[in-house]
């Protein structure tokens, strides 16, 4: 079954992922403009982009363990997953800046004074150089340093998970599950015992 899945994945061109990733926010914007996002379309859009970005971060982190431990190969989609993640983080940020907070002075105060926003913004800044270097030229140019640089996504994922945990009111399970999955995916990478790639 995994072989069949890999065959389907091999046949699926990467641009399909980019297309879906671009159409989805446009579809949400259309819904928001036509009353399809409920009573508070601003928050709906903000939350949707943030949560999708977090899910894509998790998916991106899962590519290597999925290949090593399950045998599912998503490797060729990894860059697209990363780029769309960043795109959604930017949209999440833009919705917050332009539609939600709106007031420039307050945006800066929010970043400095509200820890969950400080952390979210830090996550964005960590992702920024990774997005900029997500092209073949940078990979060639940076060589070994590219791999090291792109390990920063581990930090960004943790920051994103913590951002979600901190922003909810009261004791809520969902953000803890996200953070737990992120931590688990990072633990799988610890070089305690090198598992052979062919194990599955």
């Amino acid at each position, binding site marked *: 079954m995994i072989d069949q899945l890999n065959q389907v994945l091999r046949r699926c061109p990467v641009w399909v992922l980019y297309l879906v990733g671009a159409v989805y926010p446009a579809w949400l914007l259309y819904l928001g403009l036509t009353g399809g996002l409920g009573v*508070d*379309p601003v928050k709906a859009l903000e939350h949707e982009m943030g949560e999708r970005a977090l899910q894509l971060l998790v998916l991106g982190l899962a590519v290597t363990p999925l290949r090593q431990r399950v045998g599912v190969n998503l490797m060729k989609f990894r860059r697209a997953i990363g780029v769309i993640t960043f795109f959604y983080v930017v949209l999440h940020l833009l919705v917050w800046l332009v539609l939600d907070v709106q007031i420039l002075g307050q945006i800066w105060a929010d970043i400095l004074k509200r820890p969950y926003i400080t952390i979210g913004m830090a996550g964005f800044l960590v992702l920024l150089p990774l997005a900029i270097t997500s092209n073949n030229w940078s990979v060639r140019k940076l060589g070994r340093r590219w791999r090291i640089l792109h390990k920063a996504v581990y930090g960004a994922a943790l920051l994103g998970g913590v951002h979600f945990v901190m922003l909810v009111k*009261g004791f809520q399970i969902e953000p803890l599950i996200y953070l737990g999955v992120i931590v688990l995916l990072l633990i799988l990478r610890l070089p305690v015992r090198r598992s052979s790639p062919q194990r599955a």
Partner: protein
Amino acid sequence: LAAMARPAAAAEGDLKPNSWEEITSYNNYYEFGTGKEDPAQNAHVLTTKPWSVKIDGMVDNPGDYAFEDIMSKMTVEERIYRFRCVEAWSMVVPWNGFELADLLNMAGVQSGAKYVAFETLYRPAEMPGTAYKVLEWPYREGLRLDEAMHPLTLMATGIYGKPIPNQNGAPLRLVVPWKYGFKSIKSIVRITLTDKEPPTSWNMANRREYGFYSNVNPNVSHPRWSQANERRLGGGLFASRKPTLMFNGYEKEVAGLYEGMDLAKFF
């Protein structure tokens, strides 16, 4: 006094009520889930008949008061109030209800009482959200006695002339329009007169963020949200923020209650 409350509020000219749809499909009622749409989806299973409210503590006539008996003695009127959530969104709601003071007078408040404590129904079988300890159930709120007796303080039993829907706190809930929405406790089953400041749910969950008073105050910033302005819901994707008014626009009526108090300290 009741008559004075309305023109003062209406004079602001920004009291166009939100639609029934908006008011009843976007709620914070964590006993039915933490999502804004969860209460509208889940609260229909709540049994609100029969319903009684236990009034106890420092009152002359303690006891379980049947909802119908309370209603037969109260005068219901419409009050169009601003509703300001601590999350910095707001609505305007045309409530129907009676003054809490009338209910408390019926129970006979004893002279030593200083505070009023409220409790929401806790019925896990009908409240899926209580499966998680998002807050310590039952939900609790409280007011100082003079706040509770204030003519603006309402026990709401309806919206737009219809019985209040379950997701909005059926069959009766508190409405304190100059405080953040979470003070306006829903589906009340118990009212206790006491001489001590009662514990309140959000204050118990996070003392630093939610004070006992929780008056709407644009000058006191909340650790999560600036309270300087708000998003009035119903304006769509591009509605601009509007400044939050001191005491949510009811300053003239209620500022006197807090004379001499440092509102940054007693937030």
